[in-house]
């Protein structure tokens, strides 16, 4: 018996036959250190937010009950549709981008090529930097006139691309920064999963004549499926909640071309003080994320089977 068990074992009393065992408060106390903050800061705001979404409220005074009017308003608000269309586009660019590049980088580092140790650090490094810093750095990199990207393209005779100032390119510019930022976590998770694949399995397939493509397709990818599913799920949720990069790089513009639901919720709540409406949008986004996540996990399971 360890010292902790010895300490708390003495506090327990064996119930007599037929007697209801006494309530062990000490267990609840330890759970409370996590549960209380979780209930207060996570669950209570969700419940309160749901209530506020059914009211008209601007912090001062009592919320005025208006039923589902905020939700009806959201359906006819063109910026809501623009923002939700944009996150679908963000998801279609960022999720595959992060997953595929994360896998490619993990495969490279797992091979232990020269400098793969340095590469491991470099690939993960952006993930520990805040999204705001990433956004600011990429604003400079993607500047139409003086940015590094356009300078490089210019040296190949390609004319400057308005990465952040055109309605056609702004979403792509923000996506590029997001992929670079999010890549680190996907890379580390996939690298860990790669290192868990038994070496003898790989060696056996090589002896049996499997080339690199067949090894990837029939050995590596099936083993990575649970982690890939997790990476895609986490990345999808993260992308659907994209905010900081949008706020710093384009502020949702031009003409809403790069806005996102969270960015719109932020402006509705903090700029216009429409907390009821903002809450309705937040609850709607929660439902969208939940549905998409379930559909995506179901799809991956179906594909695997």
């Amino acid at each position, binding site marked *: 018996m360890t010292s902790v068990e010895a300490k708390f074992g003495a*506090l327990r009393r064996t119930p007599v036959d037929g007697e209801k065992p006494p309530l062990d408060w000490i267990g609840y106390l330890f759970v409370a250190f996590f549960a209380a903050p979780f209930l207060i800061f996570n669950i209570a705001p969700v419940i309160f937010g749901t209530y506020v979404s059914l009211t008209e409220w*601007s912090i001062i005074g009592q919320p005025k009950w208006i039923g589902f009017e905020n939700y009806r308003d959201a359906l006819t608000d063109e910026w809501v549709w623009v923002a939700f269309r944009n996150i679908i586009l963000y998801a279609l660019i960022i999720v595959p981008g992060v997953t595929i590049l994360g896998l490619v980088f993990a495969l490279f580092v797992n091979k232990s090529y020269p400098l793969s140790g340095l590469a491991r650090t470099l690939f993960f490094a952006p993930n520990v930097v805040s999204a705001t810093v990433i956004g600011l750095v990429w604003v400079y990199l993607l500047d139409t006139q003086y940015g590094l990207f356009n300078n490089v393209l210019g040296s190949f005779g390609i004319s400057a691309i308005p990465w952040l*100032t055109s309605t056609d390119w702004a979403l792509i510019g923000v996506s590029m920064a997001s992929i670079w930022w999010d890549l680190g976590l996907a890379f580390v998770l996939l690298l860990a999963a790669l290192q868990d694949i038994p070496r003898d399995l790989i060696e056996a397939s090589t002896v049996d004549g499997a080339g690199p493509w067949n090894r990837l397709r029939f050995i590596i990818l099936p083993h990575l499926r649970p982690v890939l599913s997790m990476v895609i799920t986490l990345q999808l949720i993260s992308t659907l909640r994209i905010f900081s990069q949008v706020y710093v790089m384009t502020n949702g513009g031009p003409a*809403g071309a790069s806005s996102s639901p969270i960015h719109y919720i932020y402006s509705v709540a*903090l700029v216009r003080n429409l907390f009821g409406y903002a809450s309705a949008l937040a609850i709607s986004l929660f439902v969208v994320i939940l549905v998409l996540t379930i559909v995506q996990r179901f799809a991956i399971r179906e594909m695997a089977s």
Partner: protein
Amino acid sequence: MKKANKFEAGSANAGKSLSRRTILKGSAAAATTALATPYLMGSPVLASGHHEILHWSWLAASDGEIWGQMIDDFNDAHKDKGVQIRLELVNFEQYDTKVLAATATGRAPDFGWGIAGTRAQMVRDGVIVPLDDLSGEVGLDIGDFSELSISAARYPKYGNGMYMVPLDLMSLQPEINLDHVAEAGLDVNSAPATGEELIEWGKAMTKMDGDTVTRSGILMTGSGVQPTVTWGIVAEQMGFQRASADLTTAAVNPEAGIAAMEWVLALFDEHKVSTRDITDRYKAFGTGNGSIFWTGPWTLNGYVGQGLNFKTSLFPKIGSELKTYFEMGGLELYKQQDEGRYKATLEAVKWLSDNSFLWTTVGRGASPRKSILERPDYKTAGHDWSVRGAFVEGMEFATIPEIPVMAGPEFTIYSGGNFLARKLEGVWAGSKTPEEAMAQITERWQEGLDEG
């Protein structure tokens, strides 16, 4: 039996450091301390019995340093009088929300910064305290303020009370890069005074690479504040009004508003003196990537500090009447549970206003106080008159104020993310015609006016 067991369990561990009771007691004490700490720390009254006034400000750039100096000066002058101001910095975008939240919980700051005409909701909800009676009690000389500033501090739809002590008057005026002027062979002493001259100057200073503008003769961005405020100024000069004088009709003379949108579009597409590709307008002008840039006096400290060779001129007359954007900063008092605090707070605000010479010469803007403007050293203090003068003299025609209604923030022309800016972005990007945008703007603004 149960009692005995509990007691036994406790005594079995009596000699040890950890027992159930100890944990519970310790947890309760820790939780109580954690919960009480903000209240103990945040007390507005100093332990020694001195009066502490809590002030929130969003000024975080070079103007923030001068404002900090003003507060320090107040505290130095009052260190033996038992009154001190505690300055806390709050992010500009979150300022209103935090004030509302603090007021709702009875812990609002005593006073803070405000922009005249944008506070209708707070006035309606009683968050900001009316100052008409209080100002008489503390001897604030209202007659020393310009009429414009006092009228801008009032909300006609809410009893026409005065809800702010005006501190600085600001307008948008063009800053001109003198190196570009010399390079283009223009006469620095005859800055553009009309729309035609402005375009002429813009063309002379614009640099192109093929069909692409690489240096904007007239600095603009493809979205955000700059094209929005430019449209607002030009539209009002052409005869457009966002709201009628009685605040009942939105978008008076919409044709002028549409013409102003076309004027802005022509800068990019017809005259080719501007590019939509600028992402940071302040940086672009500071690094010589724009030649004429209309902005406010808050930029002076930065550009003078970096040694940029520029001067400021008066906004040109593009339409039928010379006008430019007007903004007034001032100090407002927030609702307190203890109403006895108002007098001491307004006395402190009065001191800051009476001593705002530093603020309106080095800090930002022109003074709303006649006694300060009449001081012989007003023109020689602070930055050189060639860069500061237009911001003082140009106040004469800075007559495009905020619309003091609940939906005021949606009317403001100096915004990069409000309803107006978002609608206009569609026009600048070519996804909406000026007529479509004007129709949508009119509809929304009219709803705003109807709400009150």
